């Protein structure tokens, strides 16, 4: 969980210093997880964790900086060995930054240059560490190395700033240590310290000595029966100062305390406070929790509104966003907004909501946010994964809570299955089984699945999500230990499992994008400018933060380039050019030859061919078999390629991906499918392979024969190749032309001045290196340019063009009647629906048909099913066709307006599979009946019907705004028809 609590200027970032003891990293998912609690992970593991945390937090810092240009910051490093268990990242690890540019590394570099700035500036050292005397040299070394490594970056950064006339002020960073210790030490060594950073706006000078070390409140708004953890105490103190706080702590570390405290403060001051969480169910739960504590609590979700006038409102982030867009008066009374699970920022589909919300919040609102994007699990953890669906002995010990996850997302059935599993565990009458009670132990939800549908595709849950989800098993202080059982019903690569379970926390990356509805909403209000919104987005910030690093990389590459000196460069260049051309032509020839019609006649089992994959020469291989395989490529036309099973000698040491065997090693013969496109010459030799060999005998046997054949022909310069013209009888004129070209080029190559030089090869290689550097520099430059601009500006312009073309806005960007309609619609594709409305599609439709049409926009199936061959009633089919036509028109306009849009993907968003169901539902069918009509899970049906209701409500408003009563009445009666029964029953959790 991430908790974000926001105020205008000062931003505190608090996270507990985490003890690694509890993290049991040695358990691999395939083992049953029996390693004892408290095993120390290996040191290097810990190091890398430390760095990952830095990475993570470097991005965490970002939104605040992006939002308000906080540049002065206090940073605290882990500078002492805590109980001898903590190891600092070694200096060279941090210094080693330039080998290749990947984002993670760049982030690390950002971090470094920040640190470096710290060293330059005169900052305040607020060292309150009780252990500060013990501060060892390692830290100094670390700083020194970081300084050295980052100097260049810093300069570049400054240059860059000057060049861009950026309004970035000089950054001041103070590096300090603030460590406090909690008195009690439990078995699992709870976090005893916390890191605390303060971000200030650039021109803000704060001489308040309490800033970095806020005092405990004299009259706390809320007291707790236990002693607060340092991170809690610090956060509480910051909130008492009315400053924003970002708390990043693991699940169940007690971030709720911070949230509760900010609510208490708000209530004390007579202000409103909003608590947002990403999931409706969580909102419901939070509402109940908070209601017990504070009484004056309301709930607003899409389904239900309870006590909306309360001082503390729990809502989903989407609701908060729409309130901000509408400029709801509620926002005038809100002093605090608490974002739970702020790490949703990186969610592909929904992250944008968080970002928009934070950007749109008035300056006077303070934010408090919670994130669990850390790697450490406080409760003693046991992880085990089961293959298949058989449960096994899990773990002995005390197990108050078990989180069970499932392999697929057949939500309802599977939950029942999981429940059974736990029952079975209970039935075992083990010492732990007895302690399981069904109510207590099953903590799962739809998200609790090993594979997840993220809006684009099925994927495995990420490490961060794993931690998040497994956090449900056990609460600190209440449970001693939690168990996670993964029910894996699908093959899972060890790497995947490792990545997931070992808990590489997810990086917070922005997934900011903009929708038409949002754009129109912004445009119809006077002073919200979409472009400035983009400028402030996290995505933009991240892009900008990379620039200094890229610049540094460029200078380095250029330096490297100057070191390469080549004799007679002109000559070598000519030689190289010819060679490259020749290579290209030869590749062309190879492609020409490797066409199925030419190659297929020679694919007898036993045929020896040469195989080359790009620059990877595999040498000879033996064809054993061949078959056709369809190539999924392009939109509709299915092409086939011929794939051969081929015996090749591979590198015995390489396991993951086969590699050719190095020249002087034995290697291991393996059968590998090889596309004929990779053939580099077919020999005229065909081995005679015995048919009755078992697969195990086959490989050595064939390989032996291959070696023999190779040896026999060695003296004659290799195995004889089949001639493309004489043997294959390629008579194509183009082919002959190609060959002639190759011949002339070869002649020219021999004639070049450098050809006879003995060191020509060497020099060519150098030249190639030089050219590669040039290319890379060019690429980096391009990246920088992109980062400079507002990333989405082009898209934004294109979107505006589209809106203008379709008459949603006029030439002066003033929203027109169509735009007003579209801005009301957020539950479905606003453009297509508005177009349909203005086309008059709904005029002659019955209420039920309208429902069926709208169902196309709200139903998301899990990828299955072809939209073109849906089973729909004949009288509904033309309606769907007109939807598709409209969508196609939108695509066409988009393309004309230079907005890249994937036509197929866009069209697939309109899913007709639910039309019949919706039609039946509107006609009064019972829920049981419609469930039978489709294979979709009930949960999906319910979600779709509820979204349908939302969309219809928006349509009522839209038809009112165009002044058409008939449609208004029609849509209203549609709502009446669908709003009944189970889908609209109140939440079970309330």
């Amino acid at each position, binding site marked *: 969980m991430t908790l974000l609590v926001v105020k205008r200027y000062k931003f505190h970032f608090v996270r507990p210093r985490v003890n690694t003891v509890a993290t049991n990293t040695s358990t691999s998912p395939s083992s049953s997880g029996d390693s004892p609690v408290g095993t120390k992970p290996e040191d290097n593991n810990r190091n890398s964790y430390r760095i990952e945390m830095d990475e993570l937090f470097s991005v965490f810092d970002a939104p605040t900086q992006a939002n308000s240009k906080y540049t002065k910051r206090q940073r605290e490093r882990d500078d002492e060995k805590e109980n001898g268990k903590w190891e600092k990242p070694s200096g060279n690890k941090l210094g080693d930054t330039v080998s290749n540019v990947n984002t993670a590394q760049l982030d690390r570099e950002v971090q470094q240059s920040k640190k470096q700035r710290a060293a330059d500036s005169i900052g305040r050292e607020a060292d309150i560490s009780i252990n500060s005397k013990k501060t060892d040299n390692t830290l100094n070394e670390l700083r020194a190395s970081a300084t050295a490594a980052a100097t260049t970056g810093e300069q570049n950064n400054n240059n860059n700033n000057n060049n861009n006339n950026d309004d970035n002020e000089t950054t001041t960073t103070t590096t300090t240590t603030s460590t406090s210790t909690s008195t009690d030490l439990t078995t699992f060594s709870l976090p005893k310290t916390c890191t605390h950073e303060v971000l200030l706006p650039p021109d803000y000078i704060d001489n308040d000595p309490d800033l970095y070390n806020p005092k405990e409140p004299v009259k706390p708004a809320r007291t707790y029966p236990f002693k607060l953890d340092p991170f809690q105490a610090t956060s509480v103190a910051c909130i008492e100062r009315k400053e924003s706080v970002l708390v990043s702590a693991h699940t169940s570390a007690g971030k709720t305390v911070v949230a509760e405290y900010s609510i208490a403060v708000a209530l004390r*001051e*007579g*202000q*409103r406070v909003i608590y947002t969480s990403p999931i409706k169910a969580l909102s419901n739960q939070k509402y109940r929790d908070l209601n017990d504590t504070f009484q004056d609590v309301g709930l607003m979700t899409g389904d239900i509104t309870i006590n909306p006038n309360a*001082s503390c409102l729990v809502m989903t982030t989407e609701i908060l966003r729409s309130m901000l867009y*509408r*400029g*709801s*008066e*509620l926002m*005038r*009374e*809100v*002093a605090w907004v608490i974002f739970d699970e702020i790490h949703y920022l990186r969610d592909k589909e929904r992250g944008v909501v968080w970002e928009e919300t934070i950007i749109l919040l*008035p300056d*006077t*609102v303070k934010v408090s946010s919670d994130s669990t994007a850390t790697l450490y699990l406080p409760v003693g953890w046991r992880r085990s994964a089961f293959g298949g669906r058989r449960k096994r002995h899990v773990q002995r010990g005390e197990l108050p809570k078990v989180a069970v996850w499932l392999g697929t997302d057949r939500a309802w059935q599977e939950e029942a299955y999981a429940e059974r599993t736990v029952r079975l565990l209970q039935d075992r009458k083990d010492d732990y089984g007895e302690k399981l009670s069904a109510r207590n132990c099953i903590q799962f939800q739809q998200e609790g699945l090993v594979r997840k549908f993220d809006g684009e595709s099925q994927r495995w849950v990420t490490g961060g999500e794993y931690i998040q989800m497994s956090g449900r098993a056990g609460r600190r202080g209440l449970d001693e230990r939690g168990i996670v059982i993964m029910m894996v019903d699908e093959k899972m690569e060890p790497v995947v499992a490792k990545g997931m379970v070992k808990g590489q926390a997810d990086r917070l990356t922005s997934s900011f994008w903009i929708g038409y509805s949002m754009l129109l909403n912004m445009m*119809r*209000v*006077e*002073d919200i400018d979409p472009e400035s919104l983009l400028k402030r987005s996290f995505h933009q910030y991240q892009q900008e933060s990379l620039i200094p690093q890229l610049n540094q990389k460029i200078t380095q590459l250029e330096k490297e380039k100057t070191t390469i000196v080549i004799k007679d460069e002109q000559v070598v260049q000519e030689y190289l050019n010819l060679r490259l051309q020749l290579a290209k032509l030869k590749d062309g020839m190879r492609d020409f030859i490797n066409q199925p019609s030419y190659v297929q006649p020679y694919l007898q089992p036993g045929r020896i061919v040469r195989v080359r994959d790009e620059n990877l020469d595999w040498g000879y291989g033996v064809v054993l078999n061949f078959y056709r395989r369809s190539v999924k490529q392009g939109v509709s036309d299915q092409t086939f390629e011929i794939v051969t099973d081929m015996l090749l000698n591979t590198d015995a040491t390489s396991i993951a991906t086969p590699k050719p065997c190095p020249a002087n090693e034995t290697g291991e013969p393996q059968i590998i499918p090889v596309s004929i496109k990779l053939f580099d010459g077919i020999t005229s030799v065909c081995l005679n392979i015995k048919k009755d060999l078992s697969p195990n005998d086959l490989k050595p046997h064939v390989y032996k024969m291959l070696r023999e054949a190779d040896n026999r022909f060695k003296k004659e310069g290799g195995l004889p190749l089949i001639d493309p013209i004489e043997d294959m009888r390629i008579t194509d004129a183009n082919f002959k032309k190609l060959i002639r070209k190759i011949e002339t080029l070869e002649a020219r190559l021999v004639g070049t001045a450098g050809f006879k030089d003995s060191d020509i090869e060497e020099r060519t290689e150098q030249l190639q290196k030089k050219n590669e550097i040039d290319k890379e520099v060019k690429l980096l430059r391009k990246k920088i340019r992109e980062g400079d601009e507002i990333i989405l500006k082009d898209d934004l312009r294109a979107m505006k063009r589209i809106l203008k073309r379709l*008459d949603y806005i006029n030439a*002066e*960007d*003033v*929203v*027109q*009647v*169509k735009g*007003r309609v579209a801005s009301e619609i957020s539950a479905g594709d606003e453009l297509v629906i508005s*177009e349909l*409305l*203005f*086309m*008059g599609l709904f*005029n*002659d439709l019955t209420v039920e048909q309208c429902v069926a049409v709208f169902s196309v926009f709200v139903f998301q199936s899990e990828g299955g099913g072809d939209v073109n061959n849906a089973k729909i009633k004949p009288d509904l089919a033309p309606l769907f066709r007109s939807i598709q036509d409209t969508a196609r028109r939108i695509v066409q306009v988009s393309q004309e307006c230079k907005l890249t849009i994937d036509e197929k993907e866009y069209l697939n968003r309109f899913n007709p599979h639910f039309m019949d169901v919706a039609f039946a539902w509107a006609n009064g069918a019972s829920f049981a009946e419609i469930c039978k009509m489709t294979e979709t899970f009930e949960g999906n049906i319910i979600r779709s019907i509820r979204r349908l209701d939302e969309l219809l409500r928006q349509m009522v408003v839209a038809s009112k*705004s*165009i*002044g*058409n*009563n*008939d*449609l208004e009445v029609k849509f209203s009666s549609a709502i009446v028809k669908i709003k009944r029964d189970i889908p609209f029953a109140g939440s079970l959790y309330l």
Partner: protein
Amino acid sequence: MNIDSSNNNNNSNNNVSGNVNNKDDMNFLSDININIFSPNKKMRLMHINSNESSNNKGEKSLSQRQFDRNLMTPGQTISREGEFLRGHGTFHSNNALLASVCGLVERVDKLVSVRPFKARYHGEIGDIVVGRITQVGSKRWKVDVAARQDYILMLTAINLPGGIQRRRTSSDELQMRNFFVENDLVYAEVQAINQDGSVALHTRNQRYGKLQNGTFMSVPPSLIKRGKIHYHSLESIGVDIILGVNGYIWLADSAQQRQQASLIQQHEKENYDQPLLIPQAIREVSRESRIKIARVKNSIEVLNRSFMLIHPRAIMEIYQLAEKMSLPLKDMLHPDKIKQMITAVHTNLTSNKLNNKNKTNNNNNNQDSEGEDDEDDLNEYNAYYNDQMNTE
């Protein structure tokens, strides 16, 4: 009522056509020739600029013909067949779509609506309005914005002094008259249109709120073009204008308003719980400024009376024209002068259009112009104006 104007070739300023109301200030209409073919009640309006009337005799520009076709009177059939989506200002009868108001037909795809020439203001979300407080109620003010009903400004929808974010308490309710009292002018934005049709306003940020020490005037809402910005500062003359979409206009002296705003801000920061009395020194508006404001106001009034769209450029054009003609303030609204000015503006615009390339030379307005559009506007509204006159 029908007008028969036989004289299509009218160059004379003094020639007043027959049936136009005999109000003096409408004399300038003589410039404009109106033809009405009454048999099917279809009015044809034609307007020819005096300076080019002889050339254009009998011809109609495309935009004009379109305009003719789009002009509707209540009960007139817009369309008999075909699919259409009924919009505002229309109704169904006997399979035909009829206009319910007098105005121009607008078509967006299949949506057909009639935009009335004269109607009360109808709010849309995001509109900037100037309103006058009519009532102080419980937790709300009623605001007159020239709409069918008073709009609502909730206590929760205003900024508390100093921009404090907190819940409104009962003491706030008791102090409501410290914020706004009856007859105060407010500058606000339409926040939401409620289910029951009532409209809520809000003051989105500190810029919105009470308007003090300036001049108020009102024009028909249809003369104000919805735009991105409605708060304009005419920098060359130091006058601020707020052109409310509802047709209410606020004029004030820029420098004075700035001072006043900073004073208010200062006050709110320091002692926001006491009511603020703006000292005379700050309330004072210099004589020159007052003259300027009055001249701007009259310029707007000129536009209003000649039924032309009101936007900063048009205002400035009239303003400068009046200065050039060295018209005393009080004479600006003399019907003859209005006529003169409008003619001059027309000429200006036409010459603009003709000599697009060297327009900066022979053009005395200081802003870039989109001559074509404006001419259309002028045509449209002049014609409409006549129409109004006739029907009255």
